[in-house]
């Protein structure tokens, strides 16, 4: 048995496996913490640097590690200079409309795929699965032309519509699995009590589907809020830009004014980070479940 102590890092930390005379038992544990903390530093450094830079005086940016005094003034300055209230409002509108549309469209469809048998079900369902495989680049140019012909180019509603196709397919797929996990008997007994199809869906299954809906809301909100390519292409006038493309534009405006840029990025991040902190658990499980099922 030729074993090197550090290899014990890779499996369960039971005390037995590190019982080599030359390798102190608690060194393994210490080493694990050192590695994990190093990763924390690597992952957190860009964010920490961004926060520190955002409160520096602009002539200190490149000379000092820490600011001599904290300048919160950058925040109101950038908040107004970049018209953040407008862009946050735009992003909120697009995200709300997109998620709302997707839920309204996808929830009944997912329910029907899970609960009914009808001719052509397989074919239609595979069409939905097929839509999930479409990379956004493939529909960007046709979508541009399509919205242009509807006079919905440079419109936040048009931007939302461009997200609805792919989002609906994904939501149907996720929620169908959720509806399948709910007991069939509930609907059957409600039907005996005289509920029609719509009432069974509306009053029995929809309330039970809330965890599934929550997963879709989290995934889709984050995805829509963070989307860049469509929002940067389909919206042209500055006052209609979403947060993502507004901060991208700001790079040209501020170039090396890193204080302002960092402040802008932080303001752009705050909504997502606040929601993440409030709903960590749901975020982590929702996003990973979405990946594993999708």
């Amino acid at each position, binding site marked *: 048995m030729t074993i090197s102590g550090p*290899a014990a*890092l*890779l*499996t*369960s*930390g*039971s005390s037995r*496996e590190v019982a080599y005379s030359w390798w102190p038992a608690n060194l393994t*544990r210490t080493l694990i*913490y050192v*590695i*994990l903390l190093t*990763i*924390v530093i690597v*992952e*957190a450094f*860009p*964010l920490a640097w961004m926060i520190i830079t955002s409160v520096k005086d602009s002539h200190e*940016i*490149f000379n000092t590690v820490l600011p001599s005094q904290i300048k919160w003034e950058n925040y109101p300055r950038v908040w107004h200079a970049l018209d953040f209230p407008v862009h946050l409002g735009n992003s909120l509108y697009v995200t709300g409309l997109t998620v709302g549309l997707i839920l309204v*469209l*996808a929830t*009944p*469809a997912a*329910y*029907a795929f899970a609960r*009914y048998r009808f001719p052509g079900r397989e074919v239609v369902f595979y*069409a939905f699965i097929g*839509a999930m495989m479409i*990379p*956004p*680049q*493939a529909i*960007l*140019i*046709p*979508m541009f*032309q399509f919205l242009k012909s509807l006079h919905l180019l440079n419109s936040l509603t048009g931007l939302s519509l*461009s997200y*609805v*196709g792919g989002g*609906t*397919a994904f939501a149907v797929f996720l929620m169908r699995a959720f509806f399948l996990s709910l007991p069939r008997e509930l609907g059957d007994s409600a039907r005996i009590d005289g509920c029609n*199809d719509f009432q069974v869906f509306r009053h029995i299954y929809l309330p039970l589907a809330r965890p599934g809906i929550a997963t879709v809301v989290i995934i889709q909100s984050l995805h829509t*809020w963070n989307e*860049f390519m469509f929002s*940067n*292409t389909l919206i042209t006038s500055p006052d209609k830009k979403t947060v993502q493309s507004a*901060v*991208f534009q700001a*790079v040209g405006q501020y170039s090396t004014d890193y204080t302002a840029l*960092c402040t802008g*990025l932080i303001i752009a*991040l705050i909504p*997502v980070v606040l929601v*993440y902190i409030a709903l960590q658990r749901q*975020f*982590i499980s929702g996003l*990973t479940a979405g990946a*594993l099922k999708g």
Partner: protein
Amino acid sequence: MATQSASLSLRLRPHLAPILFIAPAGVALLLLMAVPIADAVLLSLQNWNGMGPPTWAGLGNYTKLLSDETFFRALGHTAYFTFCTVILQTILPLLAASLLNSGIRGSSVFRTLYFMPVVISLAISGLLWAMLFEPNFGPINNFLRAIGLRAYTPLWLAGQNSVMPSVIIVSVWQSFGFYLVIFFAALQNVPRELYEAAELDGANAWSRFLNVTVPTIWPVTLIVIVLNTINGIKVFDQIWVMTAGGPNYASATLATYLYSIAFGAMGASNSRLGYATAIAIVILMLSVVVSLIQIRLGRRRNLDSELEL
């Protein structure tokens, strides 16, 4: 004719509810996905500058791709990015997840911290890293100079050879926590008895990792590989905000190349929409092939029952 449609409606009557439930989503999918895709295929067979009437090109755009050196460079960069991110974004999160799963305290704190960059948009992390990478006064090169490595300060995003590795670093930083959480969940489901049995057989930690952990979580590993591959094929946001595919196409991927042809860095004057769409179709084909592989794998796993129709 009338009787035919009458009998059709009679046959559909019992299925009215599901049809009504699915119709809105079906129409949305048709208008916002199927029609654009058909449009894209059609457009890829035409020459069009977006203004005048398009002219038929047949397979002309595709044959032009075959002699377009920049297209092949973009294809190569996409493959390079995909290959490196598949390797790094599978192995690093898996190893770190194993450490987290070794019974240490505070693993949920670590997971929360690692996951942080995942919720940040690709565009914003690209903009942030563009500042970090700034060669003359950016913090990374400042740090390297401060610890006496002045000779080893790369140009990062500004260098022909360093730009792709830099872009890959950003990707690994961003998605590390995401894949780590997936692996961590998978590791928690590995039965403890398997490790104990292996230990009794005298397997050391490394061989237990290779012979117990890796095979048991192989299905999840495959999913991670597929997800990374699909994301690699489509990579756009970070690269576009950091370099727009530059310098001199040194970080052009399929997506950034098609974007610069269609919309230009600053709104192109003579956009070649048909040609750009042909590249989009190439991305589409590649993603569909990988997605089909994914479905195959999912089938074999546990979606068997879930997908039974």
